[in-house]
């Protein structure tokens, strides 16, 4: 056995890449409470002080501290950079040579890079512009292939936010492999795969594609070794201690965010892996608890500093400058043992040691079987910081096994074995209006979908409407899959994630993630048509733009099957339709009900709806019931969302929940107990995801009016956390308008 693996329990992981097997054989489950945790060291505090002053400066400069416009950001583009200096930083590595200085990555679209520079008062250098005259970017490729209908659907806001002008992201490299095996072994394995593939008798298009992929991967794996060397570390061999394990793993992640500026750059399920190395060093007496915490603190500081340069249009979709350094932890093994380690606690502790923060996006994989003290600690962290989210391990494990992680907000994938083709979302509310208008856009009046009859100005018949709706959903599903096929064909061709994919198995399984927005608006609209009397009103051009609603109707969010089941059927139907059109590279179709912050933008692009929502008003985020319509309290609202079927929404069902402290319980202990009961009760019903905010609406209003009052106020929005002050005014208002569950 290798010296680096001394005292590790041997298994199949020794011969083949199998991190999951390594973890399960070697991790130490921890059943105790948080009392062992340590505060920040003086060194950590010093480094954090520097970070905080940089963050203030960044905010003052409109959100971007500095941009290096002179060269393209890649793995080896910049020399070493430090937060404080070489001796003070423990875990080292920055994307550029200065903290928070952003690099330019034009591979997904040179136009976006130029616009992003301009938006913050910079000018992209002529050198880069010239270099890209002769280079096709992803964006150019996509628009060459787009059909007229795709362009129109995109423009009208039926299909929006697609990764056709920015990098797709949502791919998680298995960075743990670098620490466990060292780069040389990993390169060797990839070379072997390539050699084997070359032996095939007939090299078909997919094989040739893969051969080129592998060549690209190997090239970038070698570059990563170069990146580590520039900081003075040789990662060709396995890590020999906790520090190296964390540093090696971080180099992998750093290389990935230097090479790629995808929409979400998640880091995966790393806590329990790191814990094995920490435990070994603690036992050997070469590490103290204080030092262990310091390592985790320092890793997290580095993760908080990751930045990408974005356009204002991009920020409209994904507000608050997120990177989605999603870090999933805890969960249960397939054998039923919980995977909480002391490092699961240490990662959560960073929110106290370093202050609350949006990144990394800490995601607790919740199971009824998690140890009680850990559940309580999570609840306490939620109440204190509003910085973590919960996802149901008991439903995800059924599909993804016990070594999956979360990309972005709610997208599960097996570590190193699955990747995702991210696909933003389509607008379910708008397509309903289009169905009523015979395929015309209700705002511009343009014919977008195939022409059909326009509904008359008389009380709508539910069955007729639903039949027409289904017809247009079928049309949309086919269009959506084909659009995604073009996007991901081009992304693979022009902006392939070489390093991240090198940290996956070669025969990777691909998921194609579709999404819906306007879910609750569509559902309530259908309910209104079914249970009340809805009469459409046309404008002078004969387009239905308003609705007259007489009578009451059940609203999604009150645990009322009459309406909740309409929603359940709707997503099941749409998912089935999506699956009918094959996806690029044999990908499996998946679906999410997640809007991130684009619910505001989608609402802007959608006319008045039969549920009483006026033209331009925001949608509710994700799978949330519409603001203010859940009248029977928080749990009724949770029960409605819990009815949605994860089997057909396996890319996630996002629900954001805000409650005032007084409504959650009488005192701190009582609040913790009640939050744990709430999470257990929600997830027991096979619900998928919950963002938890415990705060006062008054505090948010005060923060909106005077951002200096709460500089690090973090809140959970759709599947991630943001610094409240980084949201634009309209998004702040939308967050405040959302249902707050409070005690009277």
């Amino acid at each position, binding site marked *: 056995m290798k010296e680096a693996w001394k005292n590790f329990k041997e298994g199949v992981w020794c011969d083949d890449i199998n991190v999951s097997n390594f973890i399960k054989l070697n991790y130490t489950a921890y059943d105790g409470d948080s009392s062992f945790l340590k505060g920040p060291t003086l060194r950590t505090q010093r480094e954090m002080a520097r970070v905080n002053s940089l963050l203030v400066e960044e905010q003052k400069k409109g959100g971007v501290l500095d941009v290096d416009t002179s060269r393209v950001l890649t793995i080896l583009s910049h020399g070493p950079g430090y937060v404080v200096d070489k001796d003070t930083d423990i875990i080292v590595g920055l994307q550029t040579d200065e903290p928070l200085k952003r690099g330019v990555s034009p591979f997904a679209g040179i136009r976006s890079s130029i616009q992003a520079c301009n938006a913050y008062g910079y000018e992209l250098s002529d050198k880069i512009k010239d270099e890209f005259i002769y280079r096709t970017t992803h964006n150019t490729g996509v628009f060459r292939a787009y059909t007229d209908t795709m362009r129109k659907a995109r423009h009208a806001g039926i299909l929006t936010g697609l990764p056709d002008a920015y990098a797709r992201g949502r791919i998680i490299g298995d960075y743990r492999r670098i620490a466990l095996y060292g780069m040389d072994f990993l390169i060797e394995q990839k070379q072997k795969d390539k050699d084997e593939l070359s032996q095939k008798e007939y090299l078909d298009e997919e094989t040739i594609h893969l051969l080129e992929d592998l060549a690209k991967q190997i090239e970038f794996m070698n570059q990563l070794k170069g990146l580590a060397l520039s900081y003075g570390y040789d990662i060709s061999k396995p890590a020999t201690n906790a520090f190296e394990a964390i540093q090696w793993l971080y180099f992998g992640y750093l290389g990935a965010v230097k090479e790629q500026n995808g929409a979400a750059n998640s880091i995966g399920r790393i806590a329990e892996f790191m814990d094995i190395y920490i435990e070994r060093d603690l036992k050997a007496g070469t590490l103290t608890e204080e030092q262990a915490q310091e390592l985790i603190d320092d890793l997290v500081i580095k993760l908080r500093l990751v930045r990408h340069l974005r356009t204002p249009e991009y920020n409209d979709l994904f507000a608050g400058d997120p990177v989605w350094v999603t870090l999933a932890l805890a969960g249960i093994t397939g054998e039923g043992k919980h995977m909480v380690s002391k490092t699961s606690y240490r990662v959560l502790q960073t929110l106290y040691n370093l202050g609350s923060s949006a990144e990394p996006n800490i995601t607790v994989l919740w199971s009824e079987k998690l140890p009680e003290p850990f559940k309580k600690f999570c609840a306490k962290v939620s109440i204190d910081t509003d910085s973590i989210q919960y996802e149901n391990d008991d439903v995800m494990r059924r599909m993804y096994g016990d070594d999956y992680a979360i990309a972005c907000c709610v997208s599960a994938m097996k570590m190193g074995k699955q990747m995702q083709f991210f696909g933003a979302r389509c607008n379910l509310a708008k397509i309903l209006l289009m169905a009523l208008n015979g395929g015309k856009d209700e705002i511009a009046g343009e014919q977008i979908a195939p022409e059909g009859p326009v509904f008359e100005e008389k009380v709508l018949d539910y069955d007729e409407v639903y039949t027409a709706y289904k017809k247009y959903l079928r049309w949309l599903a086919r269009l959506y899959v084909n659009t995604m096929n073009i996007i991901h064909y081009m992304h693979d061709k022009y902006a392939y994630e070489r390093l991240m994919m090198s940290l996956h198995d070669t025969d990777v399984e691909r998921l194609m993630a579709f999404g819906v927005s306007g879910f609750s608006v569509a559902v309530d609209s259908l309910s209104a048509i079914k249970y009340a009397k809805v009469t459409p009103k046309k404008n002078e051009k004969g387009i239905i733009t308003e609705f007259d609603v007489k009578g009451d109707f059940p609203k999604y969010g009150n645990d009322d099957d009459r309406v909740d089941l309409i929603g359940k059927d709707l997503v099941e139907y749409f998912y089935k339709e999506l699956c009918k059109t094959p996806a690029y590279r044999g990908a499996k179709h998946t679906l999410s009900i997640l809007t991130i912050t684009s619910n505001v933008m989608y609402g802007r692009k959608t006319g008045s709806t039969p549920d009483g929502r006026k033209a331009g008003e925001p949608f509710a985020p994700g799978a949330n019931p519409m603001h203010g319509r859940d009248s029977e309290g928080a749990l009724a609202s949770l029960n409605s969302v819990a009815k949605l079927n994860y089997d057909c929404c396996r890319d996630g069902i996002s629900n954001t929940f805000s409650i005032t402290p007084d409504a959650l*319980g*009488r005192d701190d202990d009582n*609040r913790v107990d009640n939050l744990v009961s709430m999470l257990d009760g929600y997830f027991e019903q096979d619900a998928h995801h919950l963002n938890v905010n415990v705060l006062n609406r008054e505090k948010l209003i005060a923060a909106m009016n005077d951002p200096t009052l709460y500089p690090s106020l973090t809140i959970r929005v759709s599947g991630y956390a943001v610094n409240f002050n980084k949201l634009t005014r309209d998004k702040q208002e939308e967050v405040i308008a959302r249902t707050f569950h409070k005690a009277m």
Partner: protein
Amino acid sequence: MADIHSFESLAAVDGEGIRFDIFFTGCPLKCVYCHNPDTRFGSGKDYTAEEVFNKAKRFKPYFRNGGGVTFSGGEPLLNAEFINELAPMLESENIGCCIDTSGSVKLNDSVKKAIDGADMVILDLKFHNPESYKKYTGGEFENFIETGDYCTKTGKRLWLRTVIVPGINDTKEDIDRYALLAKRFNFEKYELLPFHTMGFFKYENLGIENPLEGTPPLSPEKLTELRDYLNSII
């Protein structure tokens, strides 16, 4: 059938654990500080015990750490018959219930049975003497005493609550007298609640006179001071 004003599926302060609150309409009292005057009038929404049971049952997954159903209002004991129909259904699902009452209903067999069937009672100790009780609530002090005594006699788990209103019952002398009165009951807990103005808009919406218009909410400091004092003498 019972006329029900509304449901609150996440009530965390009206009893132990997470509670599903059922707010009945109708109340024999007209407390000056009432924050739910809208429950005095019928809502026109009638529910059968079975309908309410089916609703409550849906929240069973959240009822841990002693959580369950709380009957509130309005005055829930005006609906004692209904509660007596519903409670066994809840019991069949192992869902416990709590009655949040002013004790203002005359203690008859039906009310006794409702109390017997509950896991615990939260009793409002509104005023510490019959004159103030009559003046500020319009109700009979005697009914309240009988209800409290009955809970004590039957060994019912009992929490007491008093709303403290500035200028009406917010002195230490008041607390002394409340404590003295409370001692005749066998209670687990005695909570002081601050008078707040968040229910004022309801008076406006209903177009009825708000007897405490202009009264400020009780300050958190004052509440802490009185709470500490109460805890030191009981």
